């Protein structure tokens, strides 16, 4: 990532600068960085689809897809949504509900798919 972040003009995590405050919007990546991120996202998506069609990788398909998907998610949030360069308050306002949502998903999957008989027994 260091190569990518090196193209940021006047950037710096935790520093808030109004959008468009200069000729290249200080704190935001350049268009080259955006294109590089777009290329990486496309390659990762192609890899995800390719993995889906390789029977030999069935055993590691789920964890691999989750890692690749999380990587895409993080790249978009950090570079396209500028969380890497904007104030950390914005990151907090997004990451706290995101963590809560992930916990809810994991908790419900455990309750319904992992715990024997799951929630079906609770009401009976």
């Amino acid at each position: 990532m260091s190569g990518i972040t090196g193209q940021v003009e006047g950037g710096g995590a935790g520093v808030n600068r109004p959008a468009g405050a200069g000729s290249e919007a200080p704190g935001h990546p350049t268009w080259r960085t955006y294109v590089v991120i777009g290329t990486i996202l496309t390659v990762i998506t192609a890899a995800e689809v390719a993995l889906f069609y390789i029977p030999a990788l069935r055993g590691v398909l789920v964890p691999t897809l989750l890692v690749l998907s999380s990587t895409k998610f993080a790249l978009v949030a950090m570079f396209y949504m500028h969380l890497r360069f904007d104030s950390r308050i914005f990151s907090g306002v997004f990451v706290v509900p995101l963590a809560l949502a992930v916990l809810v998903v994991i908790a419900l999957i455990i309750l319904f798919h992992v715990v024997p008989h799951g929630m079906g027994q609770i009401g009976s």
Partner: protein
Amino acid sequence: MEMESVHHPPTATGLDSRKLGFWTFIGSETLFFGSLISTYMVYKGASVSGPYPHEVLNIPVTSVSTFVLLTSSLAMVLALNAVQQGNRRGALTWLLATAICGLIFLGFQAYEFTAFVHEGLTIKANVFGSSFFVLTGFHGAHVSVGVIWLLTLWILTLRGKIGKADALNVEIAGLYWHFVDIVWIVIFTLVYLIP
């Protein structure tokens, strides 16, 4: 060139209230889609009658629509970059490209929904149908709102009402569009790719 809109009213955080408010909205949307994704995952594999996911999901078609949505996100940041530089022609081009990509994605979704209905999968056919259509339908509704928003910005830019000084308006629209994109990144993996 000095911008006019860089000076926002003083706030306790030092941040622009519009941007902070919109990030708060995105946080609430995260919880909203988290609940829909939870519902889909809870009912995954619980259908007692078909059609089942592996019988109807079309991975090649959805992969193309995913690529289109990712491309739209790139177009969106290039539109923002153009607005920030005062490049009106670039802004018009990339805003329109983003909206067109969004419309193409919606076209793919309409095709997919129609094909599913023809194969017997409706919102009340089974729990897969219910949770699938609610999740992807709400996502599609968000894409639709985004397309309308983008086309509005495109018209305003065309009429000379969006310039460098209004870059934050485009940035906030971009935040919404990228959020819609990252939600689809999750849906594509959890609903389509994970068996």
